[in-house]
């Protein structure tokens, strides 16, 4: 790409062209940076300024109900914050819920993609049916599963269980954590399936054919060729899934309202602030802790991403 400018007057048209392009690009340096600025400024204003305010709030004793403050109290909210048992519980729920939902979705999604990646009658319709859960509004998904599938009186699942002569199980009440994870996996497996399917369809057919000519076994082809090739797609699925599933709120709100065993960090912070606690100072401190923890998690996740980026450098 770098244009070594030949001595001036060189008749070589290739070098002249390269020099011209290099000149164009130098002149364009700022015009190249400029397109990035609107998006960058927008995202800084909308996401970083609230965060700075948040740090300021977290140093105050500030309650709305009953009204008190704001008075500057320094780090008091923090020392109280990270020892709070309910907060620590919500951290545990967040980690286990995200891990379980992401890994199960990836597993199910990969299986679905492998099933779809072959010729059979009505394949397009099957794929259409399979992606539908991903398109469903989370609020609707939560309400639907709670009232019409899991419910011990009206739920389809319990009707089936009772048909076998067993007792109905109040799933959401008894297993709130797994009830929510089930709905999350139902919604996110199709997304993972799309990503893996994209990977499978990008498989170079000549390599597969060569392997087949060499009479490699199906399992051999899968573990030696397909799986390594799918790896970057799986990593992408894990990172994207984690980004969205760490933030889960809607399902919890409509299914359990943050009952025991299902309050993740976002829901906990919500409960402490505008969701009924109205303790702004304390809630802001929790938020700040969460943001710092998120940055630590993000650094790990981004390292995975960066290995993704390194596979193909833009020139």
């Amino acid at each position, binding site marked *: 790409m770098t244009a070594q400018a030949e001595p001036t007057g060189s008749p070589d048209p290739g070098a002249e062209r390269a020099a011209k392009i290099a000149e164009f690009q130098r002149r364009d340096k700022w015009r190249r940076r400029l397109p990035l600025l609107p998006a960058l400024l927008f995202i800084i204003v909308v996401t970083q300024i609230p965060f700075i305010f948040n740090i300021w709030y977290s140093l105050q004793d500030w309650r709305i109900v009953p009204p008190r403050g704001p008075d500057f109290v320094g780090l008091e909210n923090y020392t109280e914050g990270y020892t709070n048992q309910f907060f620590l519980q919500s951290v545990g729920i967040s980690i286990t819920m995200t891990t379980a939902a992401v890994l199960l979705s990836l597993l199910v999604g990969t299986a679905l993609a492998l099933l779809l990646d072959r010729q059979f009658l009505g394949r397009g319709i099957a794929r259409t049916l399979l992606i539908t859960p991903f398109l469903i509004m989370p609020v609707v998904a939560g309400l639907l599963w709670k009232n019409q599938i899991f419910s011990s009186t009206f739920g389809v699942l319990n009707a089936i269980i009772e048909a076998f002569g067993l007792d109905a199980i109040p799933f959401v009440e008894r297993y709130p954590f797994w009830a929510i994870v089930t709905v999350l996996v139902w919604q996110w497996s199709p997304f993972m399936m*799309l990503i893996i399917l994209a990977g499978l369809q990008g498989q170079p057919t000549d390599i597969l054919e060569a392997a087949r000519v060499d009479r490699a076994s199906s399992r051999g082809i899968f573990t030696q060729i397909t799986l390594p090739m799918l790896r970057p797609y799986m990593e992408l699925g894990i990172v994207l899934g984690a980004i969205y599933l760490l933030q889960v709120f809607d399902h919890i709100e409509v299914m359990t309202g943050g009952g025991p065993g299902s309050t993740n960090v976002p829901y906990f912070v919500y409960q402490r602030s505008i969701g009924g606690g109205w303790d702004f100072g304390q809630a802001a401190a929790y938020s700040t802790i969460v943001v710092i923890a998120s940055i630590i*998690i993000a650094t790990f996740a981004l390292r995975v991403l960066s290995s*993704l980026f390194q596979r193909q450098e833009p020139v």
Partner: protein
Amino acid sequence: MTLTARDKQLRGQSRWGTAALGLVTWLVAALFFFPVFWMVLNSFKTELVANTKPVLLFEPTLDRWEAAIDSIPGLLSFSEAFFNSFLIVIVSTVLVLVLAIPAAYALSIYPIKAWRDALFFFISTKFLPIVAAILPLWIMAKELGLLNTHLVLIILYTAMNLPLAVWMLRSFFGEVPRELIEAAQMDGTGLYGQIKDVMLPIVAPGVAATALLCFIFAWNEFFLAVQLNPVEGSTVPVWVSTNVTTRGNFMAKLSAASTLAVLPVVIAGWIAQKKMIRGLSMGAVK
């Protein structure tokens, strides 16, 4: 690529094996779709039928659909919610593209030196839990007089989808053959012309896939809508949740409302599914 019978044999796929796996796929697909099917089915029941033990056979009625669409004075109505949602979602998606396309260009074609840092910064904002920012957002919106407006949701949905859009579009732009861009530069085409005439036609499927994902996430967003714009100016997810009542039976009406609420995104997703897969394979991991 057509496989001969011998190829299939080498691959370990008998005709019966293929048929059996196809059948399994169909069963799994039906299982995944069943909750949605059940919701649609329930929307045609009366409340009396819907709120008993589940039944498959019943006399269908449109009564609860009418009830869901009927507006009650003082409450968010179906038509208002749909109008608000379409307005907010479309404007924010357009805004995302307007901001993300030039940014993606600056990060891919002739990337600025710190393109990796810039990209990481965009993505890292997605790791900040929105719930953790809701308090300052709520206070700021209140101070600026933006509570209960369309604008506050347009701004936040744009910020919510922008990182994903920049990331996806950056990889799509990387697919544009360099020679084409250089040729355009030789012809003296400016930046705007390069993006519009040379690159956009090539990355169009990627832009469509990106826009669709933004549309899905914005249309389905509930938390910000219910916190910052909960009353008459609000969106479809908030409208759905108002169909849950503590008094009386609501299952059939809620099913009708839910079906209406998911319809635009489901139809868009069904139409664009191939484009989405192609979009993801084209660039998302590169």
